[in-house]
């Protein structure tokens, strides 16, 4: 069953510095990106960094990312909408 990984950006802190979920994921499902593209002559503000479940082909819904998140920003949902 294919899990959906929901990240609440408003709860997530500064993902670039925290990265606990990225390191906790046993199969490197999560990706760190930004919600803006690269801008000329501008470094991206760290607050623009977000986490998404990018490579969920290998998500086992183990829940480690949910557990490790200090802000409770991550939720794994299985197909029928049942929270893992």
């Amino acid at each position, binding site marked *: 069953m294919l899990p959906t990984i929901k990240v609440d950006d408003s709860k997530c802190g500064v993902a670039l510095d925290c990265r606990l979920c990225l390191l906790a994921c046993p199969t490197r499902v999560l990706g760190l990106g930004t919600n803006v593209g690269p801008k000329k002559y501008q470094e991206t503000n760290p607050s623009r960094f977000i986490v998404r479940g*990018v490579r969920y082909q290998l998500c086992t819904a183990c829940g480690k990312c949910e557990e490790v998140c200090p802000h409770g920003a991550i939720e794994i949902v299985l197909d029928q909408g049942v929270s893992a």
Partner: protein
Amino acid sequence: MCYWCEQYGGGHERWYFNPANYARRLYKVRREEAEASGAEANPQAAGGMGVVGREFMEARARRDFETVDRMSREAEQRAWQVHFGQVVTKEELDRIVDMIYPIGLMTCACRRSMRGLPDEENFTCMGMGPGMYKWERWPETYRGGMNFVTPEEAKDVLGVLNRRGLVHTVFTFGTPYLAGICNCDYPDCGALRNVIDLEVRVVWKGHHVAEIDSELCNGCGLCIKRCQFGALSFSPSTLKAYIDPFKCYGCGLCRNPCKPEAIGMVERARLPAVAGVW
């Protein structure tokens, strides 16, 4: 024959030995890197090379191979036009860095996306050619800065990365413009994830295939963990290493730890049945 050599070889032995493919005039042709489709509100999933999205994963999960096939082909076509790679050996890379200037050592976008690696731990990527002079215009793309290196320094750095077990690949930025030397590993390379997890071929196999001389192989097994592609295994019945030539990407990393030098690289083209396996 390799499609890219056919198209862009220009009479050279390989397309990446053709200086025209590094030329400034191609730099401007570079197409807008299409927002990786299906990257799900994650524009920089490009850093993780998210080339397929939910629809693909769902089709794959319900074993709808027709849809998977169609979507892989579409994703591959997009990647091949704009940004894809081919595995090269260290020896080939040494030839490339002697040919192209400047060469910049920079941070790896994939490992940033996968691990959030701090910039200072993340200098495993190389950019080359005229675009590098303009790195300061795009501070986010070149996060952590740019260290320009001489060809000899580049060879040394690549040697270190090679010993670490990273697969060398050359990457296009608006094919056939070659501007990247990536040093990749599974599972932290976005491109290899697409290739190995999803069979979306954004990295082509190289022009060589590794071959074991079983007379020389002492069965130590050190080569096996060097392989990123699952091509090497240990055969309990012969007590020697075994290479699947159809899975081999020809990176040559398995050779390094081999004391008896039992592994050699043969040209893919010399093995008719593997010659078309990219």
